[in-house]
């Protein structure tokens, strides 16, 4: 579904990604772990071109999205993204947050968009918050709304950029629960996270990144149970 070939990203002389190769299958849940500064967020943000790669190629559903002629906006409609800082629109209600893009981008009718939005709110357990403004919500609630907002575009893949890192510990669970449900429903997901327990439980494949490379990858059992690379062992010994 997504194929990444020799992806590179540098800011001036500073190299963040030094050649990433990866294929992600439909329905797969890929979890990216690694120390901070290893390039995992940059890698994720390259997938929908929030960061413009400086080298290599990314294809999504058979189309090269890094080619100059490609209209990335069309691809972004099919790639949902959830951010560490939620980034809900503070001047809109929860319902408006969720329906804005479906109405403006997908040209859905307001009725249709709201109906779907209410369904999504039910799945994330926040139906009663539809008329609230983001500032009236807790961090965990904000992130669940942000997930609903991304899902409203009916994306084919969901990208999560450290979705629980800005949350108070007691709110991490509710967000992970929603993500788990999503994974069980067969959503293709790429998740950058520091939640190792979650990675192990939900991930189909774990990528360990360090220094701008994918150092090691495999099933959770392989990577967590029997890490081959010294750097992976070192990292896991510190975080587990």
């Amino acid at each position: 579904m997504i194929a990444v070939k020799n992806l590179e990203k540098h800011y001036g002389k500073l190299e963040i990604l030094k050649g990433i190769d990866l294929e992600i299958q439909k329905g797969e849940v890929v979890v990216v772990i690694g120390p901070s500064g290893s390039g995992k967020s940059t890698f994720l943000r390259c997938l929908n071109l929030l960061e413009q790669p400086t080298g290599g190629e990314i294809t999504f559903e058979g189309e090269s999205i890094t080619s100059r002629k490609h209209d990335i906006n069309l691809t972004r409609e099919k790639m949902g993204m959830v951010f560490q800082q939620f980034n809900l629109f503070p001047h809109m209600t929860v319902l408006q947050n969720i329906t804005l893009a479906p109405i403006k981008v997908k040209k859905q009718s307001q009725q249709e968009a709201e109906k779907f939005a209410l369904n999504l709110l039910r799945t994330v357990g926040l139906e009663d918050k539809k008329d609230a403004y983001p500032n009236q919500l807790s961090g965990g609630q904000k992130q669940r709304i942000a997930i609903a907002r991304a899902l409203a575009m009916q994306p084919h893949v969901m990208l999560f950029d450290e979705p629980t890192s800005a949350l108070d510990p007691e709110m991490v669970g509710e967000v992970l629960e929603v993500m788990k449900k999503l994974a069980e429903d067969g959503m293709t997901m790429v998740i950058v996270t520091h939640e190792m327990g979650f990675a192990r439980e939900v991930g189909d494949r774990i990528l360990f990144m360090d220094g701008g490379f994918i150092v090691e990858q495999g099933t959770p059992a392989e990577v967590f149970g029997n890490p081959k690379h010294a750097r992976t062992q070192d990292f896991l010994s510190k975080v587990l």
Partner: protein
Amino acid sequence: MNIFSLAYDYRNFFLSGLQYTLLLAVLGVFFGFVLGIAVALLRMSKLRVLRFIATAWVEFLRGTPMLVQLFLIHYGLASFGVEFSAVQSGAITLSINSSAYLAEIFRAGIQGVDRGQVEAARSLGMRQAMTMRHIVLPQALKSVLPAIGNEFITIIKESSIVSFIGVADLMFQSRAVTTITYDGFTPLIVVAVMYFVLTFTMSKLLGRLERRLNTDDRR
């Protein structure tokens, strides 16, 4: 002469002056606002030429006296065959002058909007213009509302310079009344009070708008 009886006796002068002042202020505020947004967006354009033009626009209009600008438009352009009526010249001067100040205010507001807001909107497939209109501008305008209010008040007051080119605004009428009554003081007090009522109302209205917007999202 008693201030109230003077104001009453010459009410037709003052009220007709008020009409012109209001007309010019409304035009200046409206076109200054629209033009200001356009200039602010140009200043942040990817194209260097557009950025340069917008920057030059802002610097020239901020860096030269409005009276000079008014005379350039009213008398200066006339020598090239471009002639405007006094009211037109006044409206144009107020609009372009306030557009420069408002553009700087808007730019600060736009740049103050969290980058994550743009990223979230773009990640949903919204294009740049759509993101600007639905996500960035509403938040930017809200955050700079007090500064915009100041500029509106300035426009109301500065509109008095149009009396120099013969627009019969409040300031002009105060001098007309002085000529008739030989009273160099009272008519000025009358128009000063009238200007103050205008600006004070404006500032109260904006204060109310600000509070209403704030109930939406207190962060």
